[in-house]
């Protein structure tokens, strides 16, 4: 019995080590490359560890290539779209979770928004391209904000609905019985209680907006409104790739969502599975 357990333990350890290496090594190579000097890129056999680590590639990308503008665009568009998605999702989720609207309306909202999860963005962006140009929002951040808002609304609705369902109706009811108006009960009871849920949903929606590429790629044309992933795409697809600059762009693109993910780790799986997986 004991022997088998030991063997099992060895196998487990080996499998996990292999998995970790397979998953981590490409990321190590990304970071290592982003710290190399230009000269080191042309070594006959690429060096596994940067010989003269430097942050210069980050400066090249953000300053010389002007990616700081794209970074700012991304942050503005994503914050705007996140705020809008959360506000709209809350306006939809409040009635369907706290007020006696019919079950079929509730089912419609949830079903309809879930169905959007299965819609390929490319099919949507073709008509959006025409609309956005027709109303003068092509190559404008507000155009992106509208599209992002709609696209991540299902996620926001499902997350907020989950959080609001968990707050007992009785708590608000008690305030109402005490003579508070519904608005007061909402403001002083429900809103403070749902703050964590709102923040978690906002973080995850923001991370998804941040990662979005196709819409920005098609609906923007110049650095005036391009987002960061579109810029990074340019570094990967150009004829002669400058490895360290490209890697630095990649590291920046990864860093922000990763920090957010760690902050919101309790709610990530709930969000990604539309509430099927929850905290015990």
């Amino acid at each position, binding site marked *: 019995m004991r022997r088998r357990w030991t063997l099992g333990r060895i196998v487990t350890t080996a499998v996990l080590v292999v998995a970790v290496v397979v998953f981590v090594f490409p*990321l190590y190579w990304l970071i290592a*490359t982003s710290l190399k000097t230009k000269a080191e890129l042309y070594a006959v056999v690429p060096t596994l560890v940067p010989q003269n680590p430097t942050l210069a590639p980050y400066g090249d990308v953000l300053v010389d290539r002007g990616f700081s503008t794209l970074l700012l665009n991304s942050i503005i568009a994503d914050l705007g779209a996140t705020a809008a998605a959360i506000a*709209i999702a809350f306006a939809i989720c409040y009635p369907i979770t706290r007020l*006696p609207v019919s079950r079929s309306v509730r089912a419609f909202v949830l079903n309809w928004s879930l169905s959007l*999860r299965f819609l390929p963005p490319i099919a949507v962006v073709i008509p959006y391209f025409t609309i956005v140009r027709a109303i003068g929002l092509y190559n404008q951040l507000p155009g992106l904000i509208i599209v992002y808002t709609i696209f991540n609304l299902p996620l926001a609705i499902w997350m907020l609905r989950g959080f609001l369902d968990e707050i007992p109706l009785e708590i608000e009811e008690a305030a109402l019985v005490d003579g508070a108006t519904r608005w007061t009960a909402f403001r002083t009871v429900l809103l403070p209680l749902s703050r964590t849920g709102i923040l978690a949903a906002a973080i995850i929606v923001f991370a998804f907006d941040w*990662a979005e590429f196709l819409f920005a790629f098609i609906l923007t044309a110049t650095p005036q409104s391009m987002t960061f992933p579109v810029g990074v795409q340019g570094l990967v697809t150009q004829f002669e790739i400058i490895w360290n600059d490209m890697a630095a762009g990649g590291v920046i*693109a990864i860093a922000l*969502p990763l920090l957010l993910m760690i902050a919101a780790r309790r709610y990530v799986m709930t969000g990604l599975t539309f509430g099927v997986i929850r905290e015990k």
Partner: protein
Amino acid sequence: MTSPIAVPELTATTVAPRGRIHWSDRSRQERLGYRLLLPTLGTVVVVATIPFLLAVVQALTSASGAFVGLDNFTNALGNAALYESVRQTAIYAAVVLPTEILLGLGLALLVHRTVRSPAIRAAIYVAAMIPIFIPQIAVGVVFRLVFAPDYGILNVLLGDTGRNQILWLSSPPLAMLSVATVDVWQWTPFVYLVLFAGLQTVPSESVEAAQVDGASPWRQFVHIELPYIRPLLLLALFFRIADVLRVFDHVYVLTGGGPGTTTQFLSLYLYRVGFRFSDLSQASALAVVVMVAMTIFYTLISRFLPVETR
């Protein structure tokens, strides 16, 4: 006992109890509900539906705006390149989906059965979330650095940097394999996390009873664990199918659909028709077909999705 990063014990529910209270002034509350809900919901549904209607209009007209009936649909559906892209997408799905499900399931079972330390479990939980949160474009960057000739780490590790090195991204069967590998790299952890959470819901009494009866690990899986995680397997599978059918970003930056059209999946094909050949009418016809097909697909599978839409 304490892990460096506190991580919740996850569980899965498919049914949540939901009480309805009886308001004395129910109808007034109900009216308030609709007054709050309908304007917002109406606007959102309209804004989200306009693209579909516009795609239909655009698909029925030429670039100059003249009504052309179903010509664009005939062109779009008569193009052999469409079926080629569907075929490539199917191959991609056939490689990627079983691999991710089996690997994810295998890892979930392995960790569930053998790793007891909460700290290690927590570390694996956080580590598994990392790939999910890497933007697809950055995943493209990462794997450029893996697969590229000369600087790519894969050929470096294979000791293969000379003239005849393997071109992972630009020789036909390998390009498909490479972009599929990237998908597996990024999404196996998602499948793992979903199924691992599912395994947590299996009552330990049933497992212990089976072990007392001398059930083999395989029988224990098939008869006890599988029934519990079946809904989550479906969930992971459906979400992965949805993502595989829309795959674009990492393929676009890694191969651009090439070499030739060997990795030109459905989304890349629509992109090429609409924005490379600037044939928005034909692209709209394709978009309408895709939207209708996906709606039918969603309708078919939504009954099996273990998601609570009540």
